[in-house]
């Protein structure tokens, strides 16, 4: 266990049909996970504009999770395939620009994977605790 007092903040964009429903299922199944995640519901992972991921990161959030349906399962056929390319590009840009692209996670979570959702949040929280706060939390140090 990490006894560090640092509590990472995670913003999660979850698609309505799979990942968000999976989070609901984690709730109805009472699967516990760390309270560090704040969910924003979107209709499809394919609707997540990279700017929406950049905005919280630059504002100092410690991690951004994008949750969509597994390949083949997107409610809108191909939103997650497009999201996959977009997020891969975004992560490469972040990495090349000197940011920690590991703070951005893309995960496929189906409506029946409440456990996987909880596990993902748990893992991400632990991972970010190890990593420490996003340097963008405070832009100036003296």
């Amino acid at each position, binding site marked *: 266990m990490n006894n560090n007092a640092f509590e990472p903040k995670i913003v999660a964009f979850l698609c309505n049909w799979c990942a968000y429903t999976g989070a609901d299922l984690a709730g109805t199944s009472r699967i516990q996970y760390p309270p560090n995640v704040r969910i924003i519901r979107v209709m499809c992972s394919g609707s997540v504009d990279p700017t929406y991921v950049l905005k919280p990161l*630059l504002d100092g959030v410690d991690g951004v999770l994008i949750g969509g349906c597994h390949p083949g399962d997107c409610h809108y056929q*191909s939103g997650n*395939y*497009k999201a996959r*390319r977009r997020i891969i590009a*975004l992560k*490469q*840009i972040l990495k090349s*620009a000197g940011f920690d692209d590991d703070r951005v996670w893309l995960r496929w979570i189906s409506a029946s994977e409440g456990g996987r959702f909880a596990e993902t949040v748990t893992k991400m929280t632990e991972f970010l605790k190890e990593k420490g706060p996003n340097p963008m939390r405070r832009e100036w140090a003296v």
Partner: protein
Amino acid sequence: MKTVIPVENGDTLVAVRGFLKRLLEAGVVDAVLVPMETPAGAVTPALVSDSRLLDAANPLAPVMGLNAARVVGPVSIREPRGKIAAVLRPCELRALVELVKLKQASLDDMVTIGVDCLGTYDVPVYEVMRADDGVDVAAYLASAQSGELAPQDGYAFRDACQMCEKPHVSALSSGERLGGVEAVVTLELFGADLSAGIPVTLPDELAEKLGLTDPSPGPSPARRREIIEKVIAARTQVRDARFAEMDRRLEQEGIEGVFAACVRCHNCMTVCPICYCKTCLFKSPTFDHEPLQYMNWAHRKGAYRLPADTMLFHLTRLNHIVLSCVGCGMCTSACPAELPVGRVFRTIGQQVQAVFDYVPGGNVEEPLPLITFREDEWMEVGEE
């Protein structure tokens, strides 16, 4: 067909002008889009329909104040339109290919005339050179033959030109590609004695209309290849050193460090040939904030960098265009804070483009990476 535009009295420019005039006079096109010299000596593109005025055309002037792909869009995008010949540098041709994919320009009814590029100066540098020492055109054109591309003493080429490894053109109709940027007509400067003649490749039918029926091999392809390879090798060396240096800076300072002095004037976006939005999102009300909002941010972060959203602007712009960035470097030229915008975009762009195996400005048929997908790619992503 390969031939040579004959040069009389060693005046290469007059020969080029003559070639362009013939395009108009033979009725091949309705107008020529070409850099023109104002009476005061400034250079700017114009759409010329009166062949006599082409006496002011100067596509060989070593100055670049604009990526002309930007102005090709509006004159070509939809019918009805005229038939146009556009004289363009390799980086302009590449930008044009991206703009065609983005439906901001059309190659229909268009004769692209690509010209090998020997390097260009920024406008202010060119102005000083003209005023103080004069431009040594003969030496500049002579460098094409030797491949020793060097700026005039005491001056420097534009930052992007110094590291440009795609300075040459290849004719669409010719078999040998040499990896050059494609155009319908190509003026092949590299390896040629331009005081004697200008090698040109063009479709047979067009050559016939222009009365260029005498096929002439010009300088040997091997010679051209040798010179091009020499130029590319020198430029690549500079490029790679700069990539390495910028990589180091980005890693150490982060993009927020490199762009720390940005004043968010949006000049880089305004001159970027790829940034095609009518109104940039960052100029829209989406990024108008309430005074209290700024106060909240200041409270949250202790100190909040202004102008607001500057890094979001640059990172979003990277997201929007870096896959299509052709590295023309107009952004660097336009930046009042003299930030290395182009180097940042090229350094990052090269890495992102590699991920998608995408070469911007290459093939009009190849789809933009972010609007296509394959179901069975990156299968491991998202599953961990």
